[in-house]
């Protein structure tokens, strides 16, 4: 088969380019590590102000509870304006104003004022302060109600669905998406200049005089680069697991989805190299494509958050389905039944991009 012979030589070309291989694999480990450490999410010593509006026992107790948290590095502030100035000067990320009477059932308020620039820190501050104040406030209300412990102090209870018998860390929620994006990055690097480089070096023109056919060139390149993509898949997944102990579900399903991601990324890279005329343009287009996929992969923003006009684009991105499938496998331990539609979409995208590349190249290789 001509395709396999083309693929054999493509592999030789890739693996003899030592710098390409080194940068590709070490680069992916570097990106994985960077992502893992940056998104590790174990904040500590967040500078926080406490403003005790009234001097009483309850205020002191709550203030002491908040100060005891390892998350915070607490300092006293004099008044609300002083707190706002300290936020402006980046001295604190927020402050809590404890304005409680001895009997909070009748009078009092705890105000949390935080820095709008850091939403993740905002969430951490609010969650931790609620946790640290809840006990004292409950005790206080119970004492007012003469120890009627039957009173339901939590009429609304919020729980996240994670009934899977394993601990889900903060980073686990992102890891599936990050794996997809790192694979996309590697495979785009590998293939986005594959045809345009041949155009610049003249080998493409020479090949176009041969009775080889565009489909043999594309599929040969696709096979060889897919094999490298699959090696990268294993490397990236195990790097995440070894370094950050990310939550993984059924490994066969994880690899099935990740391999499809690698193959789709390879086919997109080849498509970019077919439609762009030279290496510089290929690199430009692949950068834009990568960032477009990052933005629309639902890694940072879910489809409920985005503008209506972009919802269609999200539905047209294969990586949306890949991230979704991996989250189902890794976070919920769900199986084939739950991901089969996502896998079907991925297969359709794979065929679409590959056929498109072959057709467009056939127009060029007459």
């Amino acid at each position: 088969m001509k395709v396999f012979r083309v693929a054999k030589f493509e592999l030789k070309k890739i693996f003899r380019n030592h710098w390409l291989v080194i940068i590709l694999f070490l680069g992916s480990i570097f990106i994985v590590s960077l992502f893992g450490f940056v998104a590790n999410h174990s904040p500590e010593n967040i500078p926080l102000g406490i403003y005790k509006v009234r001097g009483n026992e309850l205020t002191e107790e709550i203030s002491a509870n908040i100060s005891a948290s390892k998350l915070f590095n607490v300092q006293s502030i004099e008044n609300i304006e002083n707190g706002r100035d300290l936020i402006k000067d980046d001295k604190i990320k927020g402050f809590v104003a404890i304005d409680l009477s001895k009997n909070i059932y009748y009078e009092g308020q705890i105000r949390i004022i935080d820095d709008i620039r850091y939403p993740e820190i905002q969430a951490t501050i609010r969650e931790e302060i609620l946790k640290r104040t809840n006990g004292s406030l409950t005790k206080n209300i119970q004492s007012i109600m003469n120890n009627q412990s039957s009173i339901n102090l939590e009429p609304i209870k919020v729980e996240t669905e994670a009934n899977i018998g394993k601990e889900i860390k903060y980073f686990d929620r992102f890891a599936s998406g990050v794996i997809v994006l790192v694979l996309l990055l590697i495979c785009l690097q590998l293939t986005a200049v594959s045809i345009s480089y041949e155009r610049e070096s003249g080998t493409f023109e020479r090949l176009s005089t041969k009775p080889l056919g565009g489909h043999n060139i594309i599929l040969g390149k696709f096979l060889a680069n897919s094999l490298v993509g699959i090696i990268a898949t294993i490397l990236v997944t195990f790097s995440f697991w070894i370094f950050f102990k990310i939550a993984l579900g059924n490994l066969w399903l994880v690899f099935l989805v990740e391999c499809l991601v690698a193959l789709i990324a390879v086919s997109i890279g080849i498509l970019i190299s077919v439609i762009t005329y030279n290496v510089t343009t290929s690199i430009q287009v692949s950068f834009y494509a990568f960032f477009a996929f990052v933005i629309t992969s639902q890694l940072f923003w879910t489809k409920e958050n985005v503008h209506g006009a972009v919802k269609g684009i999200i539905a047209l991105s294969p990586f949306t389905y890949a991230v979704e499938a991996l989250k189902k496998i890794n976070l919920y331990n769900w199986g084939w039944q739950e991901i089969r539609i996502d896998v079907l979409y991925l297969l359709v995208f794979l065929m679409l991009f590959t056929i498109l590349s072959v057709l467009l190249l056939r127009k060029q290789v007459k």
Partner: protein
Amino acid sequence: MDVIEVKNLKKYFSSTKAVDDISFEIAKGEIFGFLGPNGSGKTTTLRMLATILRPTEGEIIILQKNLRNNIYKVKKEIGYIPQKEALYPDLTVKENLEFFNIGYDLSRELMEKKIQEALRLLKLDAKSNMLARTLSGGFLKRLSIAVELVHNPEVLICDEITVGLDPVSRHDIWEVLKKLKKHSTIIFTTHYLEEAEELCDRVALMSGGRILCIGKPREIADNFKAKNLNHVFAKLAGGEIN
């Protein structure tokens, strides 16, 4: 017998007439040269014969097959040696020969035999396992020629293949082309007029996308009342050689 027949061939790039209504025939075993100043349409003509460009109008018939509807069959019978080496630097000499000939359905044994013959003819046998990127310019050119010999093409199309070579290497390549003439019809473009006089049975003089005349190099020089092709070329370019 004519191996190549070209009738009323035209190639336009938007409003530019790169090749403007040319016709010629090339007989079997001939070495046929295209001469002319830069932009005269030589390379465009060659690229149409090599199936890289589609003509805007006109017919190209190679080995009795019209290129319009037999392009795949024609590709099997031709070899195209570009001006730029166009080889894979990370493949060895032998691997380059194998890779570019995947499309010709040669058996493993025949491919190996033909590769060895091509390596010997181009004096590359000692370098067969070297990566192409380690070869000097002269050897790269030899490899570029060898790539097109493995499938025994009936028509060999060469685009300024001796550009940038030292005189010894150029003469070596001339000798190779003379040997290949026994089996193949050779078409080439060149700027070296002594090369055309040395090698070509006939030449076509081109200017502004048109063929001004076709004939033996000596006849053309006589027609232009010039000492040799160098003087003809200078007249065409609007200059004079003393």
